[in-house]
Every structure is written in structure tokens, then in C-alpha cells.
């Protein structure tokens, strides 16, 4: 692990937040679709836990595994809090709260990245 590992965590976080935003957008768009089950993304801890396995390449003929970055960004069905008569489990209020969370986290991780970048720059100047 390098000392500037933070950049990698920050970009993983940004990737995870974007994937979550997409999942939530799908839920909101399908808020009135009969039979649609609300989905979400696995928590961010799952992304950190599933650090990619790397095969040692001690010989040029060895194959390397392609890095599966999006492997942990899987959609999971959320436990329904309510269900309409048509079988839809999207709770719009909850989605709005989740969207607020995503937006706030994204701004925060962007600001952390910026601050860290400025630290690096001030060391260079």
C-alpha cells in the first residue's frame, strides 16, 4: 500500500457513489411501474473488502487476471418497506433521502481529494 493510497480509496468511493446514483435513478424512474422491485448497491464496505486478487507473474508466460473493478458494485434488492397493489416497492421519500446522502458524500469525497491534492502540490512548490 503506497502512502498516497487515499487517492485510490477516493476514486473507488466516487465510483461506488456514481453506481449508487444510477441504481437510485432507476428506482425513481420506475416509481410507478407495476411489479418493479426497488434495488440498491451493496454497501461501500463490500467494495473495500473485495480487494482484487492478483496472481503473481514470475514468468513472462504467466497470465494476469483482468482487474474487475465493478465486481463489487452489484445491485441488490432492498427489503421492501411498503408495497403498492401493483407490486411496486419503491418508496419515493426514502429514495429522496438516499439521493441526498449520495450527493453529500460525493461532494465530501471530492473535497477531500482536492485538499489532498493541494497538500501534494504545496510539498512540490
Amino acid at each position, binding site marked *: 500500500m503506497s502512502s498516497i493510497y487515499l487517492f485510490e480509496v477516493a476514486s473507488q468511493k466516487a465510483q461506488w457513489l456514481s453506481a449508487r446514483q444510477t441504481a437510485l435513478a432507476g428506482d*425513481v424512474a420506475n416509481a410507478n411501474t407495476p411489479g418493479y422491485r426497488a434495488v440498491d448497491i451493496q454497501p461501500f464496505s463490500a467494495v473495500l473488502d473485495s480487494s482484487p486478487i492478483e496472481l503473481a507473474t514470475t514468468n513472462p508466460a504467466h497470465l494476469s487476471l483482468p482487474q474487475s473493478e465493478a465486481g463489487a458494485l452489484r445491485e441488490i434488492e432492498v427489503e421492501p418497506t411498503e408495497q403498492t397493489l401493483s407490486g411496486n416497492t419503491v418508496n419515493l421519500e426514502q429514495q429522496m433521502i438516499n439521493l441526498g446522502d449520495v450527493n453529500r458524500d460525493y461532494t465530501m469525497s471530492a473535497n477531500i481529494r482536492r485538499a489532498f491534492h493541494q497538500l501534494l502540490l504545496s510539498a512540490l512548490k
Partner: protein
Amino acid sequence: MQDSLQTALRIAASGLQAQSTRLRVVSQNIANAQSTGSTPGAAPYARQTISFESEMDKTLGANLVGVKSIGVDSSPFKLERDPGNPAADENGMVKMPNIDVLTELADMREANRSYEANLQVAKQSADMLNTTISLMKDA
């Protein structure tokens, strides 16, 4: 794979489109709440219904929403006595559209609410994209 945030924008746009189609159907129903036929005993305007379905977009790899079908409500027409109406039958009864304005208004409010939710998603996704872009500005 496409950029997730842009995918989110596209999904929100599909939601906006679906909800506005729904609003179009509702306004058509309300506008025609009193539209009778023009010949004796003729059928009046029949209420239209709309249903959505989730459609998988292969290039985006995301669930968009689309209009599944615009159908016709087959519930019976209301009969009203109005002998002066051109659509009145021999007993003076006129078939009125099977529209309950209150139901339509409730549907309109729901469409409005869903539209706003999708708009909010679009705004936030755009905000997030802008945040990323602004990272490059002050380097």
C-alpha cells in the same frame, strides 16, 4: 460501459418522459369528461389508461422506464337523462363518458410528484458531474 452519472441522467430523462406522457393522457381524459357522441345512442369518449414498464437498455446496462401501453377503460358509461342532447336515445338517456374527474385529479397529482422526483435526480446527477469537473479547475 458508459459513465454511471450520465446513465443516471438518461434514466431520469426516461422517467420524465413517461410521466409527461401520463399527464397528457390525464389531461385528455379531463378535457373530454363531458364529450358525448353525436348521433342518438352513440358511445361517448371512453377513458384512456396508461401503464408503464421497466425496460432494460442493453447499451446503458440500466433499467429505463417506458410506456407499456395506452389502453381504453372498459368500465360502463354513465347514463344521464338529457332529451335535448343529440346523443339522446329514444328514452331521452345520454351515455356520458366513464370519467371520474376526482380520480383523474389524483392521478395528475401523482404524476406531478413522480415528475418532480425524477427532476430532482437529474439535478443532483448534473451537480455531481459538475463537482467532478470543478476538481480540475483549481489544480
